[in-house]
């Protein structure tokens, strides 16, 4: 059945309504992957030199034995955020005489096609050859590397299992994620080094294949765990579980002063709160409010705050994250009921205005929530005001207009098994123009004059955008109105 499944997946991709859009985002992801691989190879090749010359490590194999556990923990965290859960529409196959387990094996096998699968190999192959094998012989080297890779593959299954449990049970399980971070924190403060305790295990490769065998068993167990979890949940009724949000958000009256767009903004807000996918964007945006902590720092005593180009990016990112995520599927959220708006007078106009209003408000809300960053300096406030003006004045339109190119129909009610698409890398990539645009204004002015003048120039551009808010909105409206037959016929046919 596997070749048949591969053929069907291929056909589904190629015949998708939004093939062009998907293709471009796939190409961008591919470019990114090539870049990442390139960097990984670079790191891998120079790892030995860096360890010896920069960090002053004398016994590289011994160091790697104690560092291995940190590598695996780090990979786990990275995988958790970036690794995709495989998607599959079970409805189409469950009634046919195909084994349920066969479908799941295929699905899990497919998920192995990921950069992560080769990461450990690429990163550690050179150093295994040049250092470990050189010092302790090739047999040890091969076993050592194989052990690490097998653990890395175990992580693959473990992450799939955890993501599935979290998506169906409680977000509270996310707290488990903090566990792998604990050893790093302890190490940072020099309190405790678990590497010292795990190093003997990895060094046992010297005396035989015991670690590899154990890793292999762990990997099999992890696969069994994921597999049986998937098989047991491979039913078409998954949702129907009353959640705290199920009936949340009655009228808030928040937007009542804005007339018809306000009413639509209100219904959109309900849509966001009542669907899992949009809710996960909301939670993600709230989490990323803390993103600034990584970049903003208090100036050293006696020095003044130094404004730089990175601050703009951080400011824009923090205040815009929700609409960058949500706005990229601008009309897709309404794909199953676009006719509701099409059939009424000025329906499309009101819909777009309402949605834009909501997106703008999300920016304002993020701005308000990010006010405490003033602690790092009043200049941060200036940055955030500029970011807000840019986002609402210009940025919103960039995101929305680009989203109107071949919008995808989306089934927002699907919340069940295998339909949890989270926040994909592709989405961040599609937003690159949005993040670059402010620098078109900022960079030249900052070079010719100074950063503050550049900030002012960007704010001014944002203000101009605000001044012509209606005009800019009309662009989106006319795009939708001119393509309404095409868009709505796509949407009516469903995903």
């Amino acid at each position: 059945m596997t070749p048949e499944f591969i053929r069907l997946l291929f056909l589904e991709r190629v015949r998708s309504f939004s093939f062009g859009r998907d293709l471009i985002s796939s190409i961008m992801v591919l470019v990114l992957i090539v870049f990442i691989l390139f960097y990984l190879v670079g790191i891998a090749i120079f790892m030995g030199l860096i360890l010896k010359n920069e960090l002053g490590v004398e016994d590289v194999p011994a160091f790697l034995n104690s560092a291995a556990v940190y590598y695996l923990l780090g990979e786990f965290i990275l995988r958790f955020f970036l690794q995709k859960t495989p998607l599959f529409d079970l409805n189409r196959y469950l009634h046919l005489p195909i084994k349920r387990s066969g479908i799941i094996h295929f699905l899990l096998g497919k998920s192995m096609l990921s950069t992560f699968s080769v990461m450990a190999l690429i990163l550690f192959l050179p150093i295994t050859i040049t250092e470990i094998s050189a010092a302790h012989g090739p047999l040890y080297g091969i076993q050592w590397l194989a052990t690490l890779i097998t653990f890395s593959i175990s992580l693959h299954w473990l992450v799939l299992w955890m993501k599935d449990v979290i998506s169906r049970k409680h977000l509270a399980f996310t707290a488990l994620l903090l566990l792998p971070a604990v050893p790093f924190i302890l190490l940072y403060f020099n309190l405790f080094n678990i590497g010292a305790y795990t190093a003997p295990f990895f060094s046992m490769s010297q005396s035989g294949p015991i670690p590899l065998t154990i890793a292999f068993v762990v990997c099999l167990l992890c696969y069994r765990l994921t597999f049986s979890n998937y098989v047991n949940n491979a039913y078409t009724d998954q949702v129907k579980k009353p959640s705290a949000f199920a009936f949340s958000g009655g009228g808030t009256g928040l937007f009542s002063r804005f007339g018809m767009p306000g009413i639509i903004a209100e219904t959109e807000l309900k849509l966001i709160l009542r669907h899992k996918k949009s809710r996960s964007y909301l939670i993600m945006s709230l989490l990323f409010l803390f993103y600034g902590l990584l970049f903003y720092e208090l100036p050293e005593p006696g020095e003044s705050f130094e404004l730089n180009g990175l601050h703009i990016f951080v400011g824009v990112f923090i205040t815009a994250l929700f609409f960058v995520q949500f706005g990229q599927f601008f009309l897709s959220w309404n794909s199953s009921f676009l006719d509701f708006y099409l059939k009424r007078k000025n329906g499309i106009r009101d819909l777009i205005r309402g949605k834009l209003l909501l997106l703008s408000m999300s920016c304002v809300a993020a701005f308000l929530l990010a006010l405490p960053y003033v602690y790092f300096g009043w200049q941060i406030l200036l940055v955030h005001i500029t970011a807000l003006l840019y986002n609402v004045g210009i940025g919103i339109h960039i995101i929305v207009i680009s989203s109107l190119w071949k919008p995808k129909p989306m089934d927002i009610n699907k919340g069940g098994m295998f339909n949890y698409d989270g926040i994909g890398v592709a989405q961040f990539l599609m937003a690159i123009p949005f993040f670059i645009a402010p620098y078109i204004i900022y960079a030249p002015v900052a070079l010719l004059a100074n950063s503050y003048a550049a900030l002012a120039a960007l704010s001014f551009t944002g203000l101009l955008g605000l001044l012509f808010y209606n005009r800019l909105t009309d662009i989106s409206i006319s795009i939708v109105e001119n393509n309404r037959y095409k868009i709505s016929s796509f949407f009516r046919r469903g995903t």
Partner: protein
Amino acid sequence: MIYVENLVKRYGTEEVLNIEKLTIERSECFGLVGNNGAGKTTFFQLILDLIRTTTGFVKISGENVSETEEWKNRVGSYLDEHMLLPFLSPDEYFETLRKIYGLTEEELTSALARFKPLFNDEILGKKKYIRDLSKGNLKKVGIASAFLGNPDIVLLDEPFENLDPTSQNRLKKLITEEREEKETTFLISSHDLTHVTDICNRIVLLEKGRVLKDLKDNKDVMASELSDYFNR
């Protein structure tokens, strides 16, 4: 052929189906009627092991459907368009099913030949994806796919819905012939009382997930009982 015991499906505290005991015999045409929300589709989904039972079990020729998958070779079904592959043309879809059921090309051609009147030249040989078909034609593709692979049992959820009157009659003829020739068991849910009473020798009336009436053989009694119930 099909044996159901103590079958209960609950979502949270809400009970959507509760059948104590039910046996469907070979070559029976089993009609399932009831108002919206009576549990017709849920019953079919449970028989096909598409959703989990809360308690109880369904057995097809002695096999518990949630424990084995052998029965899937002998059961054809069409509940809704989610069971189709929307990105294929009907020809490609039947070809895919041919591979899955392990039929020869001749077997597929002769199986589809029976559907020629029903298809009315609108399904086969057309350069159109399933997702672009009208609701009626979608249904025809689904029904035909349920008949593939010589099933002993065929489950159809609302097969007459969306079909034009001519097609409805052709479908009835098809079902009757199939039963006479191959002793196929049919399970059909419908809101069209005339059609089910015409073709079915047994009709079960569901109300709020429970079996309210189980009518057999006498068409006049069936018709009058059903009309009494639905004209309340």
